[in-house]
């Protein structure tokens, strides 16, 4: 059994718990909509913008912060 690297919930054999996994899936699929809406939108710029929006869900923001902290280090 592993713990989710973000929240510490039990996550079976995965790196992420089901919530953070779903958040990541949603984030990826929304990128397709965003890419069609805004030309030449890089992934990094995309997640930065999503993270700044108030409406963005908590688990989505936690995933983004995790991705950004990995890129930063």
């Amino acid at each position, binding site marked *: 059994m592993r713990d989710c690297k973000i929240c510490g919930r039990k996550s079976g054999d995965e790196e992420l718990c089901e919530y953070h996994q779903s958040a990541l899936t949603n984030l990826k699929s929304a990128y397709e909509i965003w890419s069609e809406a805004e030309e030449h939108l890089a992934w990094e710029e995309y997640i930065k913008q999503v993270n700044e929006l108030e409406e963005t869900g908590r688990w*989505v923001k936690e995933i983004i912060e995790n991705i950004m902290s990995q890129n930063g280090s």
Partner: protein
Amino acid sequence: MIITEKPTAAKRIAAALDAAKSPEEIKKGKIAYYECRRGDDELVVVYALGHLFELQQVEKGWTYPRLESKWVPKYEVDKKATNIKPIINLIQKLSKDIDEFIIATDYDIEGSLIGYLTLKLACKADPMKAHRMLFSSLTDADLEQAYSSKGGLDFPVIEAGHVRHEVDWLYGINMTRALTLSIKKVAGWFKVVSTGRVQGPTLSFVAERERLINLFVPTPFWTIHTIGNHKGNEMDLEYFKKQLSSRQDANRIVDELIGQDATVDSLNQRTVTQQPHPPFNLSSLQAEAYKHFGFKPSRTLAIAQSLYLDALISYPRTNSEMLPPTLDIKGILTGLGGMKDYAQMAKSILRGNLVPVQGKKTDPAHPSIHPTGEKPTKQLSPSDKKVYDLIVRRFLSLFGEPMIKNHLRADITCGIHKLYTRGLQIVKRGWSEFYGPYFKAEEKTLPNIKQGETIQLVSVDFENKYTQGPPRFNPASLLKLLEKENLGTKATRSSIVDSVKSRGYTQGDKFELSTLGFAVFETLAQYIPDILSPRMTRQLEIEMDNIQEGTEKRENVIKVAKTRLLSYLEEFKNKEDQIGETLVNGLQRYWKDTEELGPCPKCDDGILRVVRSPKSGKRFVGCSNYKEGKCDQTFPLPQRGTISPMEGMCPYCDHRMIKVVSGRRSWTTCINWSRCPGRQEDLKALDERRSKKKVDETGGQES
């Protein structure tokens, strides 16, 4: 003897039935009863305080399963219910000289059960020989009528009430104990985590919504704003596509429209006739009161209940949207005509044919909520007045003529693009005049334009917006969902909605799920999902209806409920360790969020939490029972770093272990560290380190 449900009802019923309308109030300490005379009958009117008896388990022990229960005086279960004892004693004493018993509690399932239990357990009387008064308002006329036409007790209704109490008791105590004891087994803490038959599904609605909110990713869209100029008058025009899905499109459309001439294509008018809203039942009253006054449903119910006890409105716990043909509408309107605020409206309605608009929903016992026409005998409080006014105006509006509205629309084209502008004209106010402040529609005239005329598009721009996540529940919307799912009853729903919050499962006004709520939901969803499903509880509501109609027996329903419960509990026992662990995990996250550090070691039910001294601003651990003066337990805390509770207890002193993270350093200790026999060495070392440090760092507060 007439048994009523509440002191105010007793007073009113005694006054209505006394031939001289002046019953004698006989005080016995803090409580009272009434004596009155009606023809040859001498009446003794006593009151209960809602339920005087409650279910208690037969076998001993705070454990599960516990399947057998019996009715006992409420004060034996709830130590705070000390006011119940003298009431039961008084009823018991007075019952000795009574030759006929009449139950005059509220006319619903709970009322019937309260009357029955009081009769059987306090009066020790034979229910088969007792009578029942049935009424939908506490006016003199209704009560006198109910007295003269009283019949026998409605046993199927009483049985249905029994079943609900028993099943709720079974699920409530057993599931709550199972959850609580799993935590105790895994972590050694005693923290009551409760759930229940209707509470489970309610929690799951909130949790499902929260999940969608937490997973939401907004996406961008664009809207076009256009201002047109027609002969010097400016007007807002809307683009025919409300949302554009790309910035490029938005840019292009703005480029193609700006500065262009558009042509008025057509002017359209659609006339709509709108009938009055149906009469109020409890949930539509609660929804309107929330919308206009912000009252949560439980507050509206309490206010309506007190208006009912003052005989100003009919019984509020009703599902019905109908007014029966036997209702004395003329009498009510005449009564309202005697009140300054409604005199004009009532008079104009009385000139008409007095046929109200009816809704579709029905109720076996009561009509929709309506005013009685009685004048308030005392000044109403501001909130009572608001709800009363809403009920009166809704009632008056039922007799109004239909409202007639014109929806106006001008279609405008510019090349391949379409624009439009809308207007609303109210031709005839009709019933909305009576509903007054509770009907809102903004009239908007169309600009003065004709077909074929030209409008110059003087300003065109776009706005970048983002999609919104699903909304959180508010008390009214959660209540509505429970009603739609047929969960709970009109009498219990608003307290279920409140309990989700009072148990710490949600926080804030907007039903935001707390970490505790999530932990309980997660655990149940993973291990006993049936408890969260509305199916089981809906099934029970159907069975209760069947009992009321006499097509199902109470014993069968209880037997099935027990079997089902036992199988859940067995499953629970088998997975107790995993369940406990999931809950403990969730509780730790919850305590971290709320700065709570687990149960207090000194008192039974306190929770330790991080508090800050208002004087020095320093933080320490205090007990949640401190405010009530029940517990003074405190522990000092390091002043820096974040603190979170850990699973284990200190091996030296058995106090809670905590983790302190300050900068890059993190360490574990127990909350009793300043006195813990195992930590005195560390403390000495810290003291030494600190005295060295103080030389080069002033104001250091690390302790």
